[in-house]
Protein backbone atom coordinates (compact mmCIF):
# COMPACT_ATOMS: atom_id res chain seq x y z
CA UNK A 1 0.00 0.00 0.00
CA UNK A 2 1.39 3.37 -1.01
CA UNK A 3 1.97 5.80 1.82
CA UNK A 4 1.85 9.51 1.09
CA UNK A 5 4.06 11.51 3.42
CA UNK A 6 4.38 15.09 4.49
CA UNK A 7 7.07 16.61 2.26
CA UNK A 8 8.84 17.89 5.38
CA UNK A 9 9.44 14.29 6.47
CA UNK A 10 11.00 13.02 3.23
CA UNK A 11 14.54 11.67 3.31
CA UNK A 12 17.16 13.01 0.91
CA UNK A 13 16.79 9.84 -1.15
CA UNK A 14 13.02 10.15 -1.30
CA UNK A 15 13.32 13.75 -2.50
CA UNK A 16 15.84 12.78 -5.14
CA UNK A 17 13.74 9.87 -6.38
CA UNK A 18 10.65 12.05 -6.62
CA UNK A 19 12.48 14.83 -8.49
CA UNK A 20 14.18 12.40 -10.85
CA UNK A 21 10.90 10.68 -11.71
CA UNK A 22 9.22 14.04 -12.38
CA UNK A 23 12.09 15.07 -14.65
CA UNK A 24 11.89 11.77 -16.52
CA UNK A 25 8.16 12.23 -17.13
CA UNK A 26 8.96 15.69 -18.46
CA UNK A 27 11.70 14.40 -20.73
CA UNK A 28 9.45 11.74 -22.18
CA UNK A 29 6.61 14.19 -22.90
CA UNK A 30 4.17 12.51 -20.55
CA UNK A 31 4.29 15.34 -18.00
CA UNK A 32 2.96 17.92 -20.43
CA UNK A 33 -0.14 15.84 -21.15
CA UNK A 34 -1.19 16.43 -17.55
CA UNK A 35 -0.80 20.19 -17.97
CA UNK A 36 -2.87 20.17 -21.17
CA UNK A 37 -5.65 18.16 -19.57
CA UNK A 38 -5.79 20.45 -16.55
CA UNK A 39 -5.86 23.56 -18.72
CA UNK A 40 -8.67 22.12 -20.84
CA UNK A 41 -10.83 21.61 -17.78
CA UNK A 42 -9.97 25.03 -16.34
CA UNK A 43 -11.28 26.55 -19.58
CA UNK A 44 -14.23 24.21 -19.95
CA UNK A 45 -15.60 24.21 -16.39
CA UNK A 46 -18.11 27.05 -16.02
CA UNK A 47 -20.54 28.02 -13.28
CA UNK A 48 -23.55 28.08 -15.60
CA UNK A 49 -22.54 25.11 -17.77
CA UNK A 50 -20.96 21.72 -17.59
CA UNK A 51 -18.36 21.58 -14.83
CA UNK A 52 -16.27 18.65 -13.69
CA UNK A 53 -12.72 19.46 -12.61
CA UNK A 54 -13.34 22.74 -10.83
CA UNK A 55 -16.02 24.94 -9.26
CA UNK A 56 -18.23 21.90 -8.74
CA UNK A 57 -18.73 18.98 -6.33
CA UNK A 58 -16.41 16.77 -8.37
CA UNK A 59 -13.47 19.15 -7.80
CA UNK A 60 -12.27 16.79 -5.06
CA UNK A 61 -12.77 13.35 -6.69
CA UNK A 62 -11.61 14.70 -10.07
CA UNK A 63 -8.30 15.87 -8.60
CA UNK A 64 -8.02 12.66 -6.54
CA UNK A 65 -8.17 10.67 -9.79
CA UNK A 66 -5.87 13.12 -11.60
CA UNK A 67 -3.26 12.78 -8.84
CA UNK A 68 -3.58 8.98 -8.87
CA UNK A 69 -2.86 8.97 -12.59
CA UNK A 70 0.18 11.18 -12.06
CA UNK A 71 1.40 9.09 -9.14
CA UNK A 72 1.09 5.92 -11.22
CA UNK A 73 3.08 7.59 -13.97
CA UNK A 74 5.82 8.43 -11.45
CA UNK A 75 5.75 4.83 -10.21
CA UNK A 76 6.25 3.58 -13.75
CA UNK A 77 9.65 5.31 -13.51
CA UNK A 78 10.46 4.50 -9.88
CA UNK A 79 8.04 2.12 -8.15
CA UNK A 80 8.78 3.38 -4.62
CA UNK A 81 7.81 6.99 -5.33
CA UNK A 82 4.58 8.35 -3.88
CA UNK A 83 3.19 11.86 -3.89
CA UNK A 84 4.20 13.97 -0.92
CA UNK A 85 1.89 16.63 0.47
CA UNK A 86 2.64 20.21 1.44
CA UNK A 87 0.92 21.31 4.65
CA UNK A 88 1.04 25.01 3.96
CA UNK A 89 -0.46 25.78 7.37
CA UNK A 90 2.87 24.67 8.88
CA UNK A 91 5.48 25.17 6.14
CA UNK A 92 4.37 28.68 5.33
CA UNK A 93 7.62 30.47 4.57
CA UNK A 94 9.74 30.86 1.41
CA UNK A 95 12.55 29.53 3.63
CA UNK A 96 10.85 26.15 4.07
CA UNK A 97 12.87 23.09 3.05
CA UNK A 98 10.22 22.58 0.35
CA UNK A 99 11.88 25.39 -1.60
CA UNK A 100 15.47 24.19 -1.13
CA UNK A 101 17.68 23.37 -4.09
CA UNK A 102 17.55 19.63 -3.36
CA UNK A 103 13.80 19.61 -3.84
CA UNK A 104 11.57 22.10 -5.68
CA UNK A 105 14.05 24.98 -5.89
CA UNK A 106 13.50 28.48 -4.67
CA UNK A 107 11.53 31.64 -5.18
CA UNK A 108 11.69 33.53 -8.45
CA UNK A 109 14.16 36.40 -8.77
CA UNK A 110 12.92 39.95 -8.65
CA UNK A 111 12.14 41.48 -12.00
CA UNK A 112 11.04 38.56 -14.14
CA UNK A 113 10.18 35.97 -11.45
CA UNK A 114 12.51 33.37 -12.92
CA UNK A 115 13.37 30.41 -10.69
CA UNK A 116 17.17 30.27 -10.88
CA UNK A 117 18.08 27.35 -8.63
CA UNK A 118 17.09 23.75 -8.07
CA UNK A 119 16.17 20.96 -10.50
CA UNK A 120 13.45 22.97 -12.26
CA UNK A 121 15.43 26.12 -13.00
CA UNK A 122 15.46 27.10 -16.66
CA UNK A 123 19.26 27.08 -16.74
CA UNK A 124 19.26 23.34 -15.98
CA UNK A 125 17.63 22.70 -19.34
CA UNK A 126 15.31 20.01 -18.03
CA UNK A 127 12.16 22.01 -17.36
CA UNK A 128 10.89 23.84 -20.45
CA UNK A 129 7.42 25.43 -20.41
CA UNK A 130 5.86 23.73 -23.42
CA UNK A 131 2.20 24.16 -22.47
CA UNK A 132 1.84 27.77 -21.49
CA UNK A 133 -0.41 30.78 -21.67
CA UNK A 134 2.27 33.35 -22.54
CA UNK A 135 5.59 33.49 -24.31
CA UNK A 136 7.82 32.94 -21.29
CA UNK A 137 9.55 29.55 -21.33
CA UNK A 138 11.01 29.53 -17.80
CA UNK A 139 9.43 28.46 -14.51
CA UNK A 140 8.39 31.47 -12.46
CA UNK A 141 7.43 31.98 -8.83
CA UNK A 142 6.72 34.96 -6.67
CA UNK A 143 6.21 33.48 -3.22
CA UNK A 144 4.00 35.57 -0.98
CA UNK A 145 3.52 38.58 -3.25
CA UNK A 146 0.14 37.94 -4.91
CA UNK A 147 -1.19 37.42 -1.39
CA UNK A 148 0.88 37.86 1.74
CA UNK A 149 -0.21 34.95 3.94
CA UNK A 150 -0.98 31.30 3.37
CA UNK A 151 -4.11 29.97 5.10
CA UNK A 152 -3.75 29.24 8.79
CA UNK A 153 -4.61 26.06 10.66
CA UNK A 154 -7.50 27.90 12.33
CA UNK A 155 -8.93 28.78 8.91
CA UNK A 156 -8.58 25.18 7.77
CA UNK A 157 -10.31 23.95 10.90
CA UNK A 158 -13.17 26.37 10.37
CA UNK A 159 -13.75 24.91 6.89
CA UNK A 160 -13.33 21.31 8.07
CA UNK A 161 -16.09 21.96 10.60
CA UNK A 162 -18.65 22.49 7.83
CA UNK A 163 -20.76 19.34 7.75
CA UNK A 164 -22.44 19.66 4.33
CA UNK A 165 -20.24 18.39 1.47
CA UNK A 166 -21.75 20.59 -1.23
CA UNK A 167 -24.94 22.46 -2.01
CA UNK A 168 -26.96 23.92 -4.85
CA UNK A 169 -26.19 25.63 -7.16
CA UNK A 170 -23.14 23.32 -7.10
CA UNK A 171 -20.69 25.95 -8.34
CA UNK A 172 -18.42 28.78 -7.18
CA UNK A 173 -21.26 30.38 -5.24
CA UNK A 174 -22.16 27.33 -3.13
CA UNK A 175 -22.14 27.57 0.66
CA UNK A 176 -20.47 24.25 1.41
CA UNK A 177 -17.36 22.44 2.59
CA UNK A 178 -16.24 21.78 -1.00
CA UNK A 179 -16.53 25.39 -2.10
CA UNK A 180 -14.90 26.77 1.03
CA UNK A 181 -12.02 24.31 0.59
CA UNK A 182 -11.74 25.19 -3.09
CA UNK A 183 -11.71 28.83 -2.02
CA UNK A 184 -14.35 30.67 -4.00
CA UNK A 185 -16.07 31.46 -0.69
CA UNK A 186 -14.97 31.85 2.90
CA UNK A 187 -11.37 32.22 4.12
CA UNK A 188 -10.13 30.94 0.74
CA UNK A 189 -7.91 27.90 1.10
CA UNK A 190 -7.00 26.13 -2.19
CA UNK A 191 -7.24 29.13 -4.51
CA UNK A 192 -5.22 31.34 -2.21
CA UNK A 193 -2.28 28.91 -2.20
CA UNK A 194 -2.10 29.07 -6.00
CA UNK A 195 -1.96 32.87 -5.78
CA UNK A 196 0.62 32.81 -2.96
CA UNK A 197 3.05 30.73 -5.05
CA UNK A 198 2.62 32.98 -8.09
CA UNK A 199 4.10 32.41 -11.54
CA UNK A 200 2.58 29.57 -13.55
CA UNK A 201 0.68 28.46 -10.44
CA UNK A 202 -1.74 31.37 -10.92
CA UNK A 203 -2.66 30.23 -14.44
CA UNK A 204 -4.74 27.48 -15.98
CA UNK A 205 -1.46 25.73 -16.75
CA UNK A 206 -0.59 25.54 -13.04
CA UNK A 207 0.80 21.95 -13.16
CA UNK A 208 3.83 23.50 -14.86
CA UNK A 209 5.08 23.99 -11.31
CA UNK A 210 5.64 20.62 -9.61
CA UNK A 211 4.40 22.13 -6.35
CA UNK A 212 0.94 21.77 -7.92
CA UNK A 213 0.96 18.08 -6.99
CA UNK A 214 2.06 18.67 -3.40
CA UNK A 215 -0.57 21.36 -2.94
CA UNK A 216 -3.34 19.19 -4.32
CA UNK A 217 -2.14 16.20 -2.32
CA UNK A 218 -2.75 18.25 0.84
CA UNK A 219 -6.18 19.33 -0.44
CA UNK A 220 -6.89 15.64 -1.00
CA UNK A 221 -5.76 14.85 2.54
CA UNK A 222 -8.06 17.56 3.90
CA UNK A 223 -10.97 15.86 2.14
CA UNK A 224 -10.00 12.60 3.90
CA UNK A 225 -9.70 14.49 7.20
CA UNK A 226 -13.16 15.98 6.65
CA UNK A 227 -14.64 12.53 6.02
CA UNK A 228 -13.16 11.28 9.30
CA UNK A 229 -14.70 14.26 11.11
CA UNK A 230 -18.12 13.82 9.49
CA UNK A 231 -18.68 10.10 8.96
CA UNK A 232 -22.38 10.70 8.44
CA UNK A 233 -21.88 13.24 5.64
CA UNK A 234 -21.56 12.00 2.10
CA UNK A 235 -20.81 13.30 -1.38
CA UNK A 236 -23.57 15.43 -2.88
CA UNK A 237 -25.48 15.59 -5.17
CA UNK A 238 -26.63 12.01 -5.60
CA UNK A 239 -28.65 12.15 -8.82
CA UNK A 240 -30.20 13.95 -11.76
CA UNK A 241 -28.30 17.21 -11.53
CA UNK A 242 -27.79 18.92 -14.90
CA UNK A 243 -24.20 19.83 -15.83
CA UNK A 244 -22.91 18.43 -12.52
CA UNK A 245 -21.27 15.09 -11.66
CA UNK A 246 -23.61 13.16 -9.37
CA UNK A 247 -22.33 10.47 -7.00
CA UNK A 248 -22.62 7.70 -9.61
CA UNK A 249 -21.87 9.68 -12.78
CA UNK A 250 -18.66 8.92 -14.60
CA UNK A 251 -16.15 11.74 -14.88
CA UNK A 252 -14.34 12.99 -17.94
CA UNK A 253 -11.69 12.55 -19.20
CA UNK A 254 -11.55 8.97 -17.91
CA UNK A 255 -15.23 8.08 -18.34
CA UNK A 256 -14.80 4.92 -16.28
CA UNK A 257 -14.68 6.26 -12.75
CA UNK A 258 -17.30 7.93 -10.54
CA UNK A 259 -17.06 9.96 -7.33
CA UNK A 260 -18.44 6.93 -5.52
CA UNK A 261 -15.41 4.92 -6.67
CA UNK A 262 -13.04 7.46 -5.16
CA UNK A 263 -14.56 8.29 -1.79
CA UNK A 264 -12.33 5.88 0.11
CA UNK A 265 -8.72 6.91 -0.49
CA UNK A 266 -7.45 3.96 1.57
CA UNK A 267 -8.28 1.70 -1.36
CA UNK A 268 -5.38 3.38 -3.17
CA UNK A 269 -3.01 4.88 -0.57
CA UNK A 270 -2.85 6.02 3.02
CA UNK A 271 -1.56 9.22 4.57
CA UNK A 272 1.29 8.98 7.03
Amino acid at each position, binding site marked *: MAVRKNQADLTATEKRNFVDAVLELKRSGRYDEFISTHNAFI*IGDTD*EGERTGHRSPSFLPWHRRFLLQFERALQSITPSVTLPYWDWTVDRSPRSSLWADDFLGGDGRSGDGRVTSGPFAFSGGKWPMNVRVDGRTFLRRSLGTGVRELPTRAEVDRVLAMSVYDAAPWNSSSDSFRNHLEGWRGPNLHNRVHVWVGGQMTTGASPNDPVFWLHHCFIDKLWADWQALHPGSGYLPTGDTPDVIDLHDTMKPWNDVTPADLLDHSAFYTYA
Partner: protein
Amino acid sequence: MSRPTRRQVLHGSAAALAGAVLAAPVAFPGTAAARPVDGHRDSAGAGRTAGHEMPDPFDEIYEGRHIEGWPADDEGSHGGGRRGPGGGAEHRAGPAGPHEGMDFVVRIDNDDLHVMRNADGTWVSLVNHYETFGTPRALARAAVRELKGADLVPVVTG
Protein backbone atom coordinates in the same frame (compact mmCIF):
# COMPACT_ATOMS: atom_id res chain seq x y z
CA MET B 1 -25.90 15.83 -18.65
CA SER B 2 -28.46 16.04 -21.40
CA ARG B 3 -27.56 17.24 -24.88
CA PRO B 4 -23.93 17.27 -25.93
CA THR B 5 -22.33 20.68 -25.94
CA ARG B 6 -19.20 22.02 -27.48
CA ARG B 7 -17.75 21.93 -24.00
CA GLN B 8 -18.33 18.21 -23.84
CA VAL B 9 -16.63 17.83 -27.17
CA LEU B 10 -13.70 19.75 -25.71
CA HIS B 11 -13.52 17.42 -22.76
CA GLY B 12 -13.90 14.45 -25.03
CA SER B 13 -10.84 15.47 -26.95
CA ALA B 14 -8.93 15.84 -23.70
CA ALA B 15 -10.03 12.34 -22.82
CA ALA B 16 -8.91 10.93 -26.10
CA LEU B 17 -5.48 12.42 -25.65
CA ALA B 18 -5.08 11.81 -21.94
CA GLY B 19 -3.25 8.57 -22.47
CA ALA B 20 -1.60 9.36 -25.75
CA VAL B 21 1.78 10.77 -26.55
CA LEU B 22 1.53 14.49 -27.10
CA ALA B 23 3.27 14.40 -30.44
CA ALA B 24 1.97 17.67 -31.82
CA PRO B 25 0.18 19.98 -29.41
CA VAL B 26 -2.99 21.36 -30.89
CA ALA B 27 -3.28 25.07 -30.42
CA PHE B 28 -5.99 27.58 -30.89
CA PRO B 29 -5.48 29.49 -34.11
CA GLY B 30 -3.75 32.80 -33.71
CA THR B 31 -6.64 34.51 -35.33
CA ALA B 32 -9.85 35.03 -33.48
CA ALA B 33 -13.39 35.85 -34.30
CA ALA B 34 -13.67 39.22 -35.87
CA ARG B 35 -14.72 41.99 -33.59
CA PRO B 36 -18.47 42.34 -33.70
CA VAL B 37 -19.87 45.38 -35.35
CA ASP B 38 -21.08 48.06 -33.02
CA GLY B 39 -24.73 47.23 -33.47
CA HIS B 40 -24.24 43.80 -31.92
CA ARG B 41 -22.81 44.93 -28.64
CA ASP B 42 -25.89 45.97 -26.77
CA SER B 43 -27.61 42.62 -27.04
CA ALA B 44 -24.52 40.47 -26.70
CA GLY B 45 -24.72 37.72 -24.13
CA ALA B 46 -28.38 38.29 -23.44
CA GLY B 47 -29.92 35.31 -21.72
CA ARG B 48 -26.65 34.11 -20.26
CA THR B 49 -26.09 36.91 -17.81
CA ALA B 50 -27.65 35.22 -14.76
CA GLY B 51 -29.02 38.53 -13.62
CA HIS B 52 -25.72 40.40 -13.78
CA GLU B 53 -25.21 43.48 -15.91
CA MET B 54 -22.77 42.90 -18.75
CA PRO B 55 -19.78 45.23 -18.27
CA ASP B 56 -19.16 48.01 -20.76
CA PRO B 57 -16.60 47.69 -23.54
CA PHE B 58 -13.19 49.23 -22.89
CA ASP B 59 -10.18 50.16 -24.96
CA GLU B 60 -7.08 51.72 -23.42
CA ILE B 61 -3.32 51.64 -23.12
CA TYR B 62 -2.31 50.28 -19.73
CA GLU B 63 1.36 50.12 -18.76
CA GLY B 64 2.29 50.21 -22.42
CA ARG B 65 -0.10 47.44 -23.49
CA HIS B 66 -3.23 47.85 -25.58
CA ILE B 67 -6.07 46.26 -23.64
CA GLU B 68 -9.60 46.09 -24.96
CA GLY B 69 -12.74 44.17 -24.22
CA TRP B 70 -16.34 43.89 -25.30
CA PRO B 71 -19.33 41.63 -24.67
CA ALA B 72 -19.02 38.48 -26.77
CA ASP B 73 -21.37 38.22 -29.65
CA ASP B 74 -23.90 35.46 -29.53
CA GLU B 75 -22.35 32.16 -30.59
CA GLY B 76 -22.37 31.55 -34.30
CA SER B 77 -22.90 35.09 -35.43
CA HIS B 78 -19.33 36.36 -35.37
CA GLY B 79 -18.44 38.36 -38.41
CA GLY B 80 -16.30 36.17 -40.65
CA GLY B 81 -17.05 33.09 -38.59
CA ARG B 82 -13.41 32.29 -37.92
CA ARG B 83 -13.92 30.04 -34.96
CA GLY B 84 -11.29 27.36 -35.26
CA PRO B 85 -9.95 24.61 -37.46
CA GLY B 86 -13.34 22.90 -37.72
CA GLY B 87 -15.16 26.05 -38.68
CA GLY B 88 -17.33 25.89 -35.59
CA ALA B 89 -18.97 22.54 -36.24
CA GLU B 90 -20.19 20.63 -33.21
CA HIS B 91 -18.29 17.52 -34.16
CA ARG B 92 -14.86 18.91 -34.86
CA ALA B 93 -12.09 17.05 -33.10
CA GLY B 94 -9.95 20.05 -32.26
CA PRO B 95 -10.19 22.31 -29.25
CA ALA B 96 -12.83 24.95 -28.88
CA GLY B 97 -12.42 28.34 -30.45
CA PRO B 98 -10.78 31.14 -28.53
CA HIS B 99 -14.06 32.51 -27.27
CA GLU B 100 -15.56 29.20 -26.24
CA GLY B 101 -18.03 29.68 -23.43
CA MET B 102 -17.00 33.29 -22.99
CA ASP B 103 -19.40 36.11 -22.26
CA PHE B 104 -16.82 38.79 -22.82
CA VAL B 105 -13.86 39.08 -25.18
CA VAL B 106 -10.61 40.51 -23.79
CA ARG B 107 -7.52 41.16 -25.86
CA ILE B 108 -4.04 42.33 -24.96
CA ASP B 109 -2.11 43.72 -27.94
CA ASN B 110 -4.64 41.93 -30.19
CA ASP B 111 -4.09 38.52 -28.57
CA ASP B 112 -7.05 36.82 -26.92
CA LEU B 113 -7.09 36.39 -23.16
CA HIS B 114 -9.52 33.69 -22.08
CA VAL B 115 -11.86 35.04 -19.42
CA MET B 116 -14.79 33.61 -17.50
CA ARG B 117 -17.55 35.09 -15.40
CA ASN B 118 -18.30 33.63 -11.99
CA ALA B 119 -21.81 33.09 -10.64
CA ASP B 120 -21.45 36.10 -8.34
CA GLY B 121 -20.65 38.38 -11.29
CA THR B 122 -16.89 38.53 -10.68
CA TRP B 123 -14.39 37.49 -13.35
CA VAL B 124 -11.29 35.32 -13.73
CA SER B 125 -8.83 34.95 -16.59
CA LEU B 126 -6.55 32.16 -17.70
CA VAL B 127 -3.57 34.21 -16.47
CA ASN B 128 -5.05 34.88 -13.02
CA HIS B 129 -7.37 31.95 -12.67
CA TYR B 130 -7.52 31.61 -8.89
CA GLU B 131 -8.42 35.17 -7.94
CA THR B 132 -11.48 37.14 -8.87
CA PHE B 133 -11.87 40.62 -10.33
CA GLY B 134 -14.83 42.97 -10.32
CA THR B 135 -14.68 43.78 -14.02
CA PRO B 136 -12.99 42.50 -17.18
CA ARG B 137 -10.98 45.75 -17.28
CA ALA B 138 -9.54 45.04 -13.82
CA LEU B 139 -8.79 41.50 -14.95
CA ALA B 140 -7.02 42.74 -18.09
CA ARG B 141 -4.92 45.19 -16.09
CA ALA B 142 -3.94 42.42 -13.66
CA ALA B 143 -2.91 40.24 -16.60
CA VAL B 144 -0.73 43.05 -17.96
CA ARG B 145 1.03 43.33 -14.61
CA GLU B 146 1.50 39.56 -14.49
CA LEU B 147 2.80 39.30 -18.05
CA LYS B 148 5.59 41.86 -17.53
CA GLY B 149 5.74 42.49 -21.25
CA ALA B 150 5.32 38.88 -22.41
CA ASP B 151 2.88 38.11 -25.20
CA LEU B 152 -0.11 35.85 -24.74
CA VAL B 153 0.14 32.68 -26.84
CA PRO B 154 -2.58 30.47 -28.30
CA VAL B 155 -3.63 28.08 -25.60
CA VAL B 156 -2.89 24.36 -25.79
CA THR B 157 -5.64 22.26 -24.30
CA GLY B 158 -5.27 18.98 -26.15
